[in-house]
C-alpha cells in the first residue's frame, strides 16, 4: 500500500505531500506521547496523532516515518505545515478521531496484504 493509495481510499486531506507519495507504508503507530513514538514507532509507518506542534515533524523526520495523520479535523499550525514542507514529511488530516482512523487503516492494510499473497 502506498501513501497515495491510502490517501485516496481514506479520503485524507493532504496538507503536505512529503518527499514521495509512492512510498510504501509498513504500518501505523498511534500515540500522542512523543517519546513513545521515538522509542517504539518503526520506520515507514504512518503516525496517527492529535499533537499539532513543531516537534511532531522533527520526530517523524528523525524516525523516517511515512507520514503524519492529524486527527479530529485539525488544520496544522502554520509553523508545523512549513516545517513539514521543509523536511519533506507527508502531513495528512482526517475528521475522524484516532480509534476510527486506526481501525480503517488497519483494515485497508490487512486487505492489501491478503491481496498481495
Amino acid at each position, binding site marked *: 500500500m502506498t501513501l497515495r493509495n491510502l490517501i485516496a481510499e481514506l479520503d485524507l486531506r493532504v496538507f503536505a505531500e512529503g518527499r514521495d507519495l509512492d512510498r510504501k507504508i509498513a504500518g501505523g503507530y498511534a500515540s500522542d506521547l512523543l*517519546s513513545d513514538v521515538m522509542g517504539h514507532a518503526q520506520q515507514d509507518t504512518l503516525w496517527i496523532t492529535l499533537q499539532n506542534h513543531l516537534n511532531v515533524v522533527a*520526530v517523524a523526520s528523525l524516525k523516517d516515518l511515512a507520514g503524519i495523520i492529524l486527527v479530529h479535523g485539525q488544520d496544522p499550525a502554520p509553523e508545523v505545515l512549513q516545517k513539514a514542507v521543509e523536511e519533506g514529511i507527508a502531513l495528512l488530516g482526517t475528521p475522524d478521531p484516532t480509534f476510527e482512523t486506526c481501525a480503517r487503516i488497519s483494515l485497508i492494510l490487512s486487505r492489501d496484504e491478503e491481496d498481495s499473497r
Partner: protein
Amino acid sequence: MEYSYTISGGDFTHAGEASSHLKRILKSLNLDPVLIRRTVVALYEAEVNVVAHAWNGKVMVDISPDEIVIVVKDAGPGIEDIERAMQKGYSTASPTVREMGFGAGMGLFNMKSNSDSLEIKSDPGVGTEVRIVNKIS
C-alpha cells in the same frame, strides 16, 4: 569531524535541530540507516531534556572512523537521583511540557536503548553532562 550546537532552555521551537543536522551529516557519510536512526534518536532525547529542564546547553559531536561520540552538557538544575531518573515512567517535567507529549519518563530510557554506551554525570544545581557513544561497525 567535529560539530557543535547550542540549545536554549525552554525553546521547543528549535528542539531537535542538532539531531536533524546530524542526521543529514551521517546520511551524507553513507552510514548504516539503523545506526543513524539510533544516534539521532538518542541525541533528540538529550536535546529535549535540555530544553525541558535546563537553562542552556551545548552539544558536541565527534565523528571518527570508529565511532560517533556525542556530549551534551547543560547548565541547569541537574539530576538529584540518576538511577531513579533512568527508570521508565519517572519524570519531573512540567505540565506544559507534558501537554506537548513529552515528560512521559521515557527519554533517558530511549537514550540508553539507542546508544552503545551512555554516561550521565550530574551536579545538582549546576548542570548535567551526557555522553553518548555509538560504534561504527
